[in-house]
């Protein structure tokens, strides 16, 4: 029997559709866990900043296929 070969992983899709939302959830929980002193708007601003920083780091950590 032939071995089933897996389709290539679409890294862009994996990040945008797969892991970005759970990561944002985790970041939001981390800020809420850090104390009740932050307003919701401030938490959202920090979540956005951290998510942006992480996405920027992913550009170095992943080898994205060229166009």
């Amino acid at each position, binding site marked *: 029997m032939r071995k089933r070969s*897996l389709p290539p*992983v679409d890294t862009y899709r994996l990040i945008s559709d797969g892991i970005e939302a759970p*990561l944002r959830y985790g970041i939001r929980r981390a800020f809420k866990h850090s104390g009740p002193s932050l307003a919701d708007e401030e938490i959202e601003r920090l979540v956005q900043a951290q998510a942006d920083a992480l996405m920027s780091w992913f550009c170095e950590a*992943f080898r*994205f296929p060229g166009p």
Partner: protein
Amino acid sequence: MPSAAQIARERERVRRALAYVQRRLGIALDVRVEHETRDGNEMAIYPRDWPREPRAFTLDFNASFIVDLSTQELRENVIHELLHALTWPLREFAMKGLSERAADEWADRIEEPVIRELTRIVATHALGRWSQR
């Protein structure tokens, strides 16, 4: 205590699992594989020189713990550890200024469940399934 030959065999299995997962996911991290005999984890990943070398990590494995893992399970464990490496900047940010107890609580209650969920998603993409260990 595993023999030198067993450690070498398990090291090779971990290296192959790591190479496979990095190739499948296009991960560009420099990961060294080291045998570690500390109790506790099957595997653990640490930066080698953070933040000067943000892409350099060491993956520790405990041969006694991983000897019974299938190739699929080993690859899933490697994905789990690589996700810890990929989210290291977040960990550094979140743990800054926390006491040791608060940092442990953050790791147990927030980080680990998120990484487990990410492992499920990424393993399903990269390996075609997830064995839900």
